[in-house]
Each structure stands twice: as structure tokens, then as C-alpha cells.
């Protein structure tokens, strides 16, 4: 069975995916996880998760193309530039 290993580098930090390993059962998975990702002081904690326990979602439909829902939906760059210019003009006007 394939296990996915997540590693926490320091207390309080989020766990990041470290890699995966193949093991016949949980006991083997634990031993190999410690051996490969933990015993050299590189991890504070590990999550050892059977791959089949992970629900993977990768089919995101966006039929109406409502891209403003997405973080990259529209560019702030132009708006930011305009806002800065406005603010700059206002400052210059005030200083006069």
C-alpha cells in the first residue's frame, strides 16, 4: 500500500508533503517514514496517510466563466497603478 508522508519542520508550522513510500502495513509505514523523513532531526512531526484515504479533487468546472471568483480573476495591477497616481496627485495638490 502506498502511504503519503507529510512533514512538519518546526512546531506550529504547517505540514508539507514530503514524499511517498510503499509498505505492506502501518507498522512498516511507520518504520520507513521515521527512517526516511524523521531520524536526522529534520522533522518535528510526520503525518503518515494511506494514499487511498486522500480525497483528491481536480475537476473544477467554471461553465459560466465567472472568473472574478478566482484569485487570479482580474488583474489588480492597472487599478493599483491608477489609484497610486490619483493618490500621488492628491498629495502634490495638498503640499502646494
Amino acid at each position, binding site marked *: 500500500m502506498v502511504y503519503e508522508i507529510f512533514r512538519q519542520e518546526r512546531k506550529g508550522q504547517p505540514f508539507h508533503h514530503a514524499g511517498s*513510500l*510503499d*509498505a*505492506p*502495513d502501518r*507498522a*512498516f509505514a511507520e*518504520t*520507513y517514514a*521515521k*527512517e*526516511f523523513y524523521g*531520524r536526522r532531526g529534520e522533522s518535528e512531526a510526520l503525518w503518515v496517510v494511506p494514499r487511498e484515504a486522500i480525497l483528491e479533487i481536480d475537476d473544477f468546472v467554471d461553465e459560466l466563466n465567472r472568473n472574478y471568483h478566482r484569485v487570479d480573476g482580474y488583474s489588480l495591477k492597472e487599478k493599483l497603478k491608477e489609484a497610486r497616481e490619483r493618490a500621488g496627485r492628491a498629495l502634490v495638490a495638498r503640499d502646494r
Partner: protein
Amino acid sequence: MNEQDERSLLEIADDELVLGWRDSEWTGIAPFLEEDVAFSSIAQNEVGHARALYELVARRRGGTADELAFDRSLSEYRCARLVELRLPEWERTIARHYLYEEADAKRLERLKASDDPEIAGLAAKIDREEAYHRMHAQMWNERLRGQARYDAALDELRPLLAANRDDHSSEFAELWDEMTTVRRSVPGATW
């Protein structure tokens, strides 16, 4: 360090060197990839422990760890029969690993209680790594116990723990030849 201490440190060092050498014979051909990595790492640890022990003895009596590891004659080695054998069967290798780790744990406990702070300190350091080896050995033992071939291997190998350390097998003679070839062909070489 008295003579008795030196003798027992060399016994352990020889065991660890020879077992590390034997275990490393599985590198590349262990039953599956994860095990290959784990078992190779164990083999490397054992050689590392041997080196640290030889260094400690060499510091006290003069000379170097390499001289102790590779320049002694065959009869001067004090390793146990158990670690000498070439075991090309996985179940026998695991049976040896399990028996060795059990016995080694007891020996390390004694060393950790030594009056000599350097010996006790090194034993504690080694024991922290051996904890991983024991976990690995126990895991395999749980998995294989009750299976005929594994149980037979345990029965076959257990008596070797008590075998006389002055009496070496012909398999060890071959291994000694292999281990010391480089040092013997270029005496005194360093690299």
C-alpha cells in the same frame, strides 16, 4: 580503561563492523526498495558504531581506528559467529538481525552504566541509533514469526550467540580477506 574494557569494546566493534559488512551485501537486492534503503542505512550505522568504538580504543592505547579495523590478523578478531555468516536468504538475515539487536541492547545497557564517562557516553549515543534498528527488527519479527522458514532460522542461529569468539568460521576467513585486501596491498596508505 582497563584491559577488560578494551577487550569488550573491541568485541562489540568487531561485531558491528562485520555485521555492517554482511548487512550491506543486501544493498541493491533487498526484497523491495523501501527495505533496501532502510537496511542499507542500518548497515552503514553499524560500521559507524564500529568506527567510533575503534577510535575510542585507539585513543587510549595509541594507533588508529583503521589499524584496529583492518590491520589485525584473522585470529585477533573477536566477532561472534552469528555475525560472520554470509546469509543470502532474507529470513535468515532477519532472524540474525533480530537476535543480534536483542543481545546488543543488553550489552549496551551494561556499557551505559560504565564508570568510564567516555564509554558510557558513547554507548548512549550508539543506543539512540540502535533504537531504530530494534524497532525495525521487531517489526520484521512480528511479520515473520510463526512462519516455518523464519522460525527455523531463529532456531538455527540462536545457539551462535553463545559460540566461542576465538573460533572463527571459514566464511569469516573469506570476509577478512575481502575487508583487508586494500590495506594489505598498500600498507600504511591513507586516503
